[in-house]
């Protein structure tokens, strides 16, 4: 039985809310953001009058690109897409070759704070450089060849992969490492038995993730001549060969989505093991709000 008395509410009482707190940080931040946007709109020399024409211009180009595709170009473009995929893959692997050992040097739980922070900043620096700038630098060295693209992507990805990798390493559980220590393992053995098993699946997953992103980067490197389908598309646009450009675009989209899907499936399988049977299908058309415990644990 309850011994708790709850005070009844009299209807004629006037209810007053407590004072409202002022969100200063949020207000200042919003003000700055709005000011920046206003300044940008005001000062950007974008020939805004063209904006109204844009939809019809786009529509015209779209009909040209997709209405005039020629089957003859299909295999050439497919080969170019394959070259882009190859560039992306090789670049990612090269990046991993450097990033894996370097990432161990960036992990504070392995090498200590000072050297780790230094390597982390090197990663940050590499991350900041867009691949195309690297490609701009490498083309004079390697010529208008895919190698320039491979190295641009390779060196550009060391930064992100390195960062993702060392974050994984820092997140490993201490248990297996301590256990290895306790049985007198050397540093290398500690790595092999304590760290690597935890770390390898996630690293592979991130490597594939980076590969998916690099496909996009390699598709555009061709625009400045570093190989791949980008050069085919940009040349086509330059010479107003709309059909080829449209076909190339479709191939890029389909190719990228395909790689994404395969890579995504492999990633999910690596990180979470064999697929489990899904209990409740959220897309169930009947949309019942079923509760597991109420239907007897089914």
């Amino acid at each position, binding site marked *: 039985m309850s011994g708790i008395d709850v005070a009844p509410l009299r209807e004629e009482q006037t209810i007053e809310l407590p004072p409202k707190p002022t969100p200063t940080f949020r207000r200042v931040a919003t003000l700055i953001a709005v000011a*920046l*946007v206003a*300044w*940008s709109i005001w000062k*950007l*020399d*974008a*020939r*805004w009058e*063209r904006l109204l*024409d*844009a939809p019809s211009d*786009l529509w*015209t*180009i779209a009909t040209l690109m997709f209405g005039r595709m020629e089957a003859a170009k299909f295999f050439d473009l497919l080969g170019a897409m394959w*070259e882009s*995929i*190859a*560039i992306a*893959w*090789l670049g990612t692997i090269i990046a991993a070759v450097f990033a894996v050992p370097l990432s161990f040097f960036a992990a504070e739980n392995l090498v200590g704070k000072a050297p780790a922070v230094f390597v982390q900043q090197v990663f940050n*620096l590499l991350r*900041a*450089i*867009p691949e*195309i*700038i690297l490609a*701009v*630098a490498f083309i*004079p*060295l*390697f010529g208008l*060849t*895919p*190698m320039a693209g*491979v*190295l641009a992507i390779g060196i550009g990805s060391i930064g992100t992969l390195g960062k993702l990798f060392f974050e994984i390493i820092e997140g490993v559980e201490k248990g297996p490492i301590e256990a290895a220590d306790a049985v007198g393992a050397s540093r290398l053995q500690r790595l092999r038995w304590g760290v690597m098993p935890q770390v390898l699946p996630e690293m*592979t997953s991130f490597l594939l993730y980076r590969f998916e992103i690099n496909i*996009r*980067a390699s*598709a*555009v490197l061709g*625009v*400045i001549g570093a*190989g791949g389908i980008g050069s085919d*598309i*940009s040349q086509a*646009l330059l010479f107003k060969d709309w059909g080829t*450009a449209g076909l190339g*675009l479709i191939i*890029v*989209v389909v190719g*990228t*989505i395909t790689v*994404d899907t395969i890579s995504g499936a*492999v990633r999910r399988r*690596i990180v979470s093991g064999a697929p489990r049977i899904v209990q409740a299908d959220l897309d169930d*058309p009947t*949309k019942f*709000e079923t509760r597991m415990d109420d239907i007897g644990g089914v």
Partner: protein
Amino acid sequence: MSLTDQASTAPTLPRKPGISRFAIGVAIAAAALTIITARAVDFSLGEIIENFTRKNSVIEGLFNPDWGQIWSRRSRGPFIETLQLAILGTVTGATLALPLALWSTDFGNPNRLLRTIVRTFNSIIRSIPDLLWASIFVASVGIGALSGLLALFFFSIAVTTKLTADTLDGIDRGPIEAAHASGASLTQMLRTAVVPQILPSYTSFVLYNFELNLRASAVIGIVGAGGIGQRIEFFRGRGDWEALWGLVVMFFLVVFVVERISVTLRRRLV
């Protein structure tokens, strides 16, 4: 009875759980792919080392950059333009990304067909890289900042929608049920039960999007969509590596500073 007595009748151990067959398959596929692709691009380690160590003006220019280039009379305007494009591209794209992401969820869009259409649309948008958007818009609406803005608009939608949609997949559905139970409309439910849950993450994504757009806006000028990209292309054509590196290095120092600020802000949010 000691353990050694039992040695002759030792029980058989269970099968040793080795690396799964799937993992081995992946490793083999990866190795094969690497070999095939290396052949396809004529990979040669010797050539790489030789080309890097050869004397050339590109590397020399890198060690002697023209630091003042970015603020020079002709580069100053494109530099400002790059910043403006990044800001506007982010704001427009990220704004549209929120409703688009909501529209791709089961609670935000009960119509299954419509949802699939939105998701397919998002997938397609996401598979076109920034420079390709820029090339297409330059071809349609002409050279200049407008095509850059349109390119970054679509690019931003791609980036932010994906991140937001992924976050929406993991939200607490309880408040959604509560909103439904009180008779709220779909829009009201989304505004009060869903959006508050993801607002910090969403803001963080918008800032991240801005970081990406800064990099993108710097290079879209290479195909004529505005910003310092045009200057980069100009110097490249002339082989003026000192000016090019001066411009690029200074710009990315600015980007670096902005990123540090953005990262701290983002940490404060989530």
